[in-house]
């Protein structure tokens, strides 16, 4: 089969219940978005795992480069004052 005719790849995101966010669960191939939703229903929600499905063409996702992990995420590591545990709270104060 010619390469160009292969169905595109889609990433599937499922909301498991009202009040929770959609979460990536896997991927599948489908000819278009409608089929991707139908296939996602059949493959990823056979046991009531979800009440809402998002599908996104995989090639539309831009990902950060794991090789830049250090420079990208390091600044957060060194700013401990962003966490409440950085601060001393005097005795006698129970909730803050």
């Amino acid at each position, binding site marked *: *089969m010619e390469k160009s005719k292969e169905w595109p790849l889609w990433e599937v995101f499922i909301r498991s219940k009202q009040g929770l966010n959609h979460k990536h669960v*896997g991927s*599948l191939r489908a000819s278009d978005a409608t089929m991707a939703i139908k296939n996602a229903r059949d493959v990823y929600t056979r046991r009531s795992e979800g009440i809402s499905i998002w599908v996104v063409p995989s090639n539309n996702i831009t990902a950060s480069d794991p090789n830049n992990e250090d420079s990208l995420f390091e600044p957060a590591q060194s700013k401990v004052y962003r966490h409440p545990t950085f601060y001393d709270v005097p005795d006698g104060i129970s909730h803050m």
Partner: protein
Amino acid sequence: MMEIDIKELEKKFQLKIDKDIRIEPNDWMPDAYRKTLIRQISQHAHSEVVGMLPEGNWITRAPNLRRKAVLLAKVQDEAGHGLYLYSAAETLGADREQTIDDLHSGKAKYSSIFNYPTLSWADMGAVGWLVDGAAIMNQVPLCRCSYGPYARAMVRVCKEESFHQRQGFEIMTKLASGTSAQKEMAQDAFNRFWWPALMMFGPSDADSSHTEQSMRWKIKRHTNDELRQMFVDATVPQAELIGLTIPDQDLKWNTVKEGYDYGAINWDEFWQVVGGNGPCNKERVDARRKAKEDGKWVVEAAMAFAQKRSAKKSA
């Protein structure tokens, strides 16, 4: 890349593995790690898909509607498992159609158990109980595999697989407590599937070429023989409970190792079946090849339809 750089990267990689940090698709990994995973995951995917055939054989002949609905659901699950696994292989850069074509050309293998025929309804019981049971034994440790997408697929598969084993055991329990003809049918299925089920764990450790490296990479967490022993120890009491006899005269409890000693496995048969000479090898691969060829026009038509519609939209 310079050789020294690769050495450094490999060292970092192994360090991550040793610390139980999962490897994700875009992370650097040694070529051999990638190749091993693609081989293992695509074989695993093929096994799920080919595994639908021996059971599909009995869907129209299930003894009642409940059994039929259950068997249909189980076979549908196997298709899903195949898909999770093909997707996991794709994250490693494997070309999905190519891996499927490798199955069809005989280049890629699948679990040799599916080259045995399913001759009676009791075989649905034996397959669910023993074959899915052995698969679970294999797959539970794979949930902790070092490669993230494979491990996550396994978590999903294991969740679904436990109903498969139970429904098989239920069929066997029912038959084993039925008429003498039914009991005989159950015992016959058990006799035919016991040894091939033990072979599912692969060659013994001494003859397993991939085990050592796969353990170091934490793709595998137990050796073939360890898993086989766990399976025997778990299954023997289940067979005894429903009154079936293990077709192994050498089987006996070993108080020292606190496990069963079992008889010699016929490795010659194993290698024959792996090599393509099992009872159903040709039938299975032919069925898969035919499915792809017969379905080709559907794949093409769906794609043509999608392209036409998106052209209309943008016009």
